[in-house]
């Protein structure tokens, strides 16, 4: 249970993770607030399913003590590379920002339960904000060669800071940018726009990440359209596998622990 709705742990297996020392291929600015880091890993690029994440951090004695969870933004199995996107917000991401080509990273992944698009689904709606968008771009990668129509509502402070526009367009998605700068990101405005657009022909699945208010909206729209709604959740964590128990999603029921974001998520079913 979160303020945005009830979370259900999804069934299904996970791909087997690996831990590797990998080299940085690219580490550059992506927008005014975010950077893109590309690393080389044949195994992770091949195994990563949509919506999965990695734990990663620089190697070395002065490196941060904990790795950071990062959504897999894109993966290219042919080139054997994985991209992640991060904002420089604290100690760990500052250290990441200082890495240059050839520097070594410790990476564990792919991790967690990702997004599953059900059989027979024809229309999928993605609703994301900020860096949360990066948890959903791999879904569009997977759906690009299929006939599934993807519509993505991408929210950010201004047009330049909205992540994922290019990747999603390249994957054939219909992209709607909404921003704080022009007021179009207000939840009521987004709701009205989506209701107008989809009420006659709604998506069968809604995926969301990056904003509690948009998550609540996605849950509402999911109920309105009877669409299966999934949310990718962020949390502080140390291990990414489940044994540190750092990332419980909520405070439990008094007797048992709440689900763990890393092991049971990061993608959960979402209900009102």
């Amino acid at each position, binding site marked *: 249970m979160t303020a945005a709705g009830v979370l259900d742990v999804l069934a299904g297996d996970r791909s087997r993770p690996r*831990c590797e020392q990998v080299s940085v291929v690219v580490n550059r600015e992506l927008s005014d607030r975010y950077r893109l880091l590309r690393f080389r890993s044949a195994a992770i690029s091949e195994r990563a399913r949509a919506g999965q994440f990695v734990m990663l951090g620089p190697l070395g004695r002065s490196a941060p003590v904990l790795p950071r969870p990062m959504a897999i933004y894109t993966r290219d199995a042919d080139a054997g590379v994985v991209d992640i996107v991060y904002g420089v917000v604290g100690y760990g991401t500052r250290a990441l920002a200082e890495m240059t080509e050839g520097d070594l990273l410790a990476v564990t992944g792919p991790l967690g339960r990702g997004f599953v698009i059900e059989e027979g689904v024809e229309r999928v709606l993605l609703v994301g904000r900020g860096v949360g968008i990066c948890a959903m771009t791999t879904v569009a990668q997977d759906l690009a060669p299929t006939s599934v129509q993807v519509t993505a509502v991408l929210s950010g402070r201004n047009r330049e800071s909205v992540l994922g526009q290019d990747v999603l367009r390249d994957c054939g998605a219909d992209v709607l940018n909404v921003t704080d700068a022009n007021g179009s990101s207000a939840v009521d405005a987004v709701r009205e726009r989506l209701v107008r657009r989809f009420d006659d022909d709604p998506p069968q699945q809604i995926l969301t990440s990056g904003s509690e208010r948009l998550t609540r909206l996605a849950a509402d729209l999911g109920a309105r359209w009877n669409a299966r709604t999934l949310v990718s959740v962020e949390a502080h964590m140390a291990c990414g596998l489940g044994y540190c128990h*750092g*990332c419980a999603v909520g405070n439990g029921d008094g007797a048992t622990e709440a689900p763990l974001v890393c092991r049971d998520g990061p993608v959960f079913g979402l209900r009102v």
Partner: protein
Amino acid sequence: MELGDLELANPVMPASGCFGPELAELTPVDTLGAVVTKTVFAQSRPGNRTHRITEVPGGMLNSVGIPSRGTTVFRDSGLGGYAGLGAPVVISIGGLSAQEYWQVVDELGACEHAAVEVNVSCPNLEHGGATLDTDLDAMTHVVSGVVARSTKPVLVKLSPQLHGMAAAARAAQDAGATAVTVCNSFPAMAVNANSRASELGNGTGGLSGPSVKPLALRLVWTAAQAVDIPVVGCGGIGSADDVAEFLIAGATAVQVGTATFAQPDVMPRIIGELPALTERLGAERIADLIGTLTIRSEDWQ
């Protein structure tokens, strides 16, 4: 390496709470000297409020609060997945009263395990703010009861009592402990000035990682001089050199905790480096390093 009847193929094992069977997918955990479970309580418990983890310079703070599914679920689920990992299993046990500790031992019964480690020191638990080993009579009562009920070696994991370590280690020895583990994470807190709130949902937590290594080394050295039973060193270990330092200070074996989070394969890599390290340090066997610390002295020329 021997901790009573517990024979270790090498001195490296994980610290409780910093390891899980999940790691078997990533790294050869059967090479470890032993594996140590997360602390098992008699009853199911949810753990602490979130946020449970934050990083500080040189370390991490946790207030996970030891969620547990209870002893019988643990026992009947293949020791929570620890059975069959190919390394001796040390079961960490906890309780909020002496009876609860003893109930865990009774319920574990004859299930396959190599030793128990009595967690008398987790600073996270809402136990009037105190831990069991700040009251040595209470600790002796619990530990002697565990020793009486268990047929296995009993390790006692002590909290980082900066002034009472020698007495705490002696009390554990007198209560029949096979070995003492020195030490658990250090009570600490992190404050966010912007929000004027604690970083952790529990307010305070335990500090671990590289920054506690010098503190833990001193406590291991203190404990090793105070008792005749083996000391298992724990605190900020992340390399083979760190292992050597703890052995030289008096530890017979070591536990690796926080380092595994950043590098899940750190323990097998350390174990692989131990033979070369032993040779470099001029020892025949790694065990020859134990307790060989001398206090530096230089004469003025």
